[in-house]
């Protein structure tokens, strides 16, 4: 199909003016990929798909959404009512909004799988350090975009979540108060906050699209890692991306869309995990809901924040838990990449995955003394995982590596 198009006269005309053929060859038909990639390698292309879906649905939602905290005749606010109007009156509005809300969670599911894959198979190790670091930047921007977006429906969770998070910035010494005012545009979260969050919620995906371009470019320079973590030799153990991996990614897209559509059509709120129940109560700045929790994808970091008695320490620990991802490639000194051949690291990374899930559970639940202790223990392991990495290779007996994949 593609080669037929590339032989056409029209394509030749375009090629002479853009160099399209060279790009397609170097990035697709002659871009060499290890032949042994498993299904864990599907999540990168899925993340790209969800990003496109989010931008597309977001553009259409912005045609009807109104970022204003002004009160309406019904006693609610313009923003809250405009979301409800999208749900009830706008043609297919319910579908586009549910696609967007479910898409946010789907984005994090896919990206967390993608990051877990990188951790397990050592994809962050040289020469892919910068590829990993760009990925961490993408994660942070995603979390920012999700946080800004969550304020927009102007429900109780929107309002109080934004209050709590902007207060976090206030805890920083010296610049804290200033940062908080810049974020809020007033003395408390209010109409100016809603307006700027809408603006930033529109900006961040554009940044995301640009940086994702950089991520893919960096990948195409250093090429994909593979389950064995071995360096591959072109031709012998590689196959071209197109058609082999385009078809495998397409299969992954089919499976993903089946699950995504199931949630969008039959369970868009996912029992309060994707859209929190309290967010259907309009924002009230005089009443805090009895239990505030962020959406599931931010709860692990929320637990780390809550695990410290001192406000500043909690904020610093939460920042550090994300910042430490940047230096991961330099903490791990082992010469072997894949956890398949690293018995000690393999146990450590499995425990790390379990730890993050427990942290997430703790952050989603109302605080109790037991959960607090569990949160503190898992927080300790979260950091221990990274801080042990410089020493593991000293006593770890790695398994013999195969000659070739």
């Amino acid at each position, binding site marked *: 199909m593609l080669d037929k198009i590339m032989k056409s006269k029209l394509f030749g005309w375009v090629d002479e003016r853009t160099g399209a053929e060279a790009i397609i060859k170097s990035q697709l038909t002659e871009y060499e990929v290890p032949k042994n990639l498993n299904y864990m390698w599907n999540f990168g292309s899925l993340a790209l798909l969800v990003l496109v879906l989010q931008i597309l649905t977001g553009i259409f939602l912005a045609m009807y959404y109104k970022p204003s905290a002004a009160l309406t005749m019904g006693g609610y606010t313009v923003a809250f009512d405009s979301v409800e109007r999208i749900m009830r009156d706008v043609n297919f509005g319910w579908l586009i909004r549910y696609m967007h809300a479910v898409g946010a969670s789907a984005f994090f599911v896919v990206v967390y799988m993608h990051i877990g894959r990188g951790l397990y198979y050592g994809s962050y190790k040289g020469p892919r350090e910068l590829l990993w670091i760009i990925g961490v930047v993408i994660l942070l921007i995603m979390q920012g975009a999700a946080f800004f977006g969550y304020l927009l429906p102007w429900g109780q969770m929107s309002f109080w979540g934004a*209050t709590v998070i*902007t207060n976090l910035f206030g805890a920083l010494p010296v610049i804290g108060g200033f940062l908080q005012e*810049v974020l809020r545009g007033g*003395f408390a979260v209010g109409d*100016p906050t809603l307006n700027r969050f809408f603006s930033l919620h529109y900006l961040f995906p554009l940044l995301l699209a640009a940086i994702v371009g950089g991520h893919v470019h960096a990948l195409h320079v250093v090429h994909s890692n593979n389950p064995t973590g071995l360096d591959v030799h072109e031709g012998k153990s590689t196959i071209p991306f197109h058609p082999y991996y385009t078809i495998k990614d397409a299969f992954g897209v089919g499976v993903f869309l089946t699950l995504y559509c199931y949630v969008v059509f039959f369970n868009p709120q996912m029992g309060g995990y994707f859209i929190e129940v309290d967010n259907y109560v309009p924002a009230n*700045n*005089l009443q805090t809901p009895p239990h505030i929790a962020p959406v599931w994808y931010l709860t692990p970091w929320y637990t780390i924040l809550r695990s410290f008695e001192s406000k500043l320490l909690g904020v610093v620990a939460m920042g550090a838990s994300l910042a430490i991802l940047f230096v991961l490639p330099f903490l791990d000194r082992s010469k072997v990449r894949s956890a398949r051949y690293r018995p000690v690291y393999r146990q450590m990374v499995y425990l790390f995955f379990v730890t993050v899930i427990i942290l997430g559970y703790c952050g989603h639940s109302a605080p109790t003394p037991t959960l607090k202790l569990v949160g503190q223990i898992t927080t300790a392991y979260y950091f221990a995982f990274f801080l042990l990495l410089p020493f593991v290779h000293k006593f770890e007996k790695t398994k013999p590596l195969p000659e070739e994949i």
Partner: protein
Amino acid sequence: MSDTLDHTRRNFLYVAAGGMGAVAAGATIVPFIGSMLPAADTLAASKTEFDVSTVVDGQLVVIQWQGKPVFVVNRTAELLKQIDGHDEVLKDPNSEAIEEVSAAWITPENRKYRSIKQEYLIMVASCTHLGCIPLYKPSPGRKEWGDSVPEDWAGGWHCPCHGSLYDMSGRVMNGSPAPHNLHLMPYEYTSDTQVVIG
């Protein structure tokens, strides 16, 4: 001629031109960041008037000041008694941190009551941890509040978000994640019962 090209002079001009360019580019940030700070009309809405006689004995009323919630409590003699006798479990019993917020009216006599008139406590209703509104749990002990408060609870506020505890004067207790007592603010009585906050 070409052998005597003055490189230091040329480099100086490069650095000077580049430096000025960087300063100019940096200066353009000022209006953009400045635009994100509270606007003039937001700043103008910074005073609130309230009649405290509308708050009955033992009642708590939440009003708004600068968009922030503010507690006004009418403390009975009984509630005022609950303020004494637990200084050792408080982080800052004399409200010495952040003096400036109450500098306008605080005196040695009203320090532990944290109010101009003993019975009317007026303070910002945002937990100093992360800004949630604490729940009013005035009666001592666990009878009404269950295990959300400690056994020797003296009455006060309990923040539902991360469990910070404050006494009947809004003073934070040890073990709470909140770093400070609930914030006071400048205010004055313009008549016997009329208060201007801000």
